């Protein structure tokens, strides 16, 4: 779960590219290959899955935002940090 939180598209794709480059350019032991392919498969699944599935966290965050932030925003409108940009 913690890894899933950390993992994003950028990290996933760069790791994937790294794995493929490794297995394409280096002679690799079959045991290591299996491990790499497993990892790559996971990364691909992660990316393709995330393109299509609803991420509960995001959904939750967005709905919370709708309820809570609406009032806050009207009050915070004059906040210095926002004003400054």
């Amino acid at each position, binding site marked *: 779960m913690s890894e899933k939180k950390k993992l994003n598209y950028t990290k996933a*794709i760069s790791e994937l590219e790294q794995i493929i480059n490794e297995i394409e350019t280096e002679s690799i032991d079959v045991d290591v290959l299996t491990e790499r392919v497993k990892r790559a498969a996971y990364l691909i699944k992660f990316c393709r899955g995330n393109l299509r599935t609803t991420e509960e966290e995001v959904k939750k965050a967005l709905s919370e935002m709708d309820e809570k932030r609406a009032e806050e*925003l009207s009050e915070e*409108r004059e906040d210095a940090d*926002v*004003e400054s940009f």
Partner: protein
Amino acid sequence: MDFLTLGELAFLIKSAIQSSLSEEYWVTAEVAQINCNYSSGHCYLDLVEKRDDVTIAKMRATIWASNFSQISNNFYAATGQELQIGMKILMLARVNYHEVHGLSVNIKEIDPRYTLGEMALKRREVIERLTREGLIEKNRQLNLPPVIQKIAVISSVTAAGYGDFLSRLNNNSYGYKFYHRLFQAYMQGEKTEDSIGDALKKCVKLRGHFEVIVIVRGGGSRADLHCFDSYRLARMIALSPIPVFTGIGHERDETVVDRVANRRLITPTAVAEFLIYTAKQFEDGIDVLRHRLITRTRTLVEQEGQRVNNFAEGLRSQAKHYFKTVNNALRNNIYLLQTRALATLKTHLINLKEYEGRLKSSSKDLLRTGGQKLKDYRRALAVHPGHMISIQSQKIDNCEMRINLLDPQNVLRRGFSITFLNGKILKEVTWVKKDDIISTRLYDGSIISTVESTGKDEGNERKEET
């Protein structure tokens, strides 16, 4: 006391104006307010002149319905925009005074080129200012994530473009999921600039939740575009920490907001398509990698299998070869062993036979010799006593004879004599001199004589006796 009625005063003013301001004038002014009466078709405006944002003149103006449609159409055709608040216009005007409605300017004509120039000038000034302040590329320099899925939308629920955007985005044929939230803003009218500004502030406050801000509004209409040339709005977009995309639905003119946005897309649909395209690009990239992975893995596995097979094959043939060699070697060794063993055995057998023969013959010899010797001994033993005695007595006789031969008595008997000097046997003539007395021993007696002389023989020395 003379006095005028208000109507009389009004009449005087009207006459004065008509006599001294009868001409038509080309006048520049800024539109401060505009209202069109759709039933009558007349248009009523407030015109101002400002200097340093302070109003230094203000007048009401009218465009009669008979002129308005043509003026309005010309203006729109030239500028792409409706007449609206904040625009600077150049108009052909006549001053009018009405006893009830007061002073106003009647607009006969508007030259849109002036407004265009003003707009372009203003836009150029804003762009120059943003460039000078290093803001013009600021939002464009923000990196986009490989996939943009969390979208803050600034639009109006009622805007046609918003619906287009959402339906295009949500009904994409790839089944990609996008998270979007609307930040409501007016997309036309005088509140547009402020409300978009407010919406932007809200988005920025929630920056962690969004990867992009899109500003979309319905395509087609070019009304109210001038607020997108506003310095304030452009500056906010430039400084937004989230990339901003625009799809504000106009094709010809690029507004200042478009200019500072991370990406300018023509229509809301185009924005949605760009977002879908980005995801598609990403997935295609993944597919390419996936394909490379599969191909490479397959190759590697096949190679490995081939290698194992080759290895097994090699092992088998090598083992076969090895066993053959070993077998041959063994066979050879066995053969060698057999032949050598046989040869050795044969040799030993021959040797043995030889030894046997030799043993037999030598033992026979030994026995024979032994027997002979025994016989000899027996024979010797048989003849021994008499024989031994005769041999020994012969030996003794012999010895006696030899001894007798050596006896000087016997020598003397044969005629030899011995001479003594002073009791010693005289052997050499030099031992004596004249007058020495010598005794000579013969066989049967002695002679005593005195030496007369001595002389040496040529060979042996000889003594002459006297």
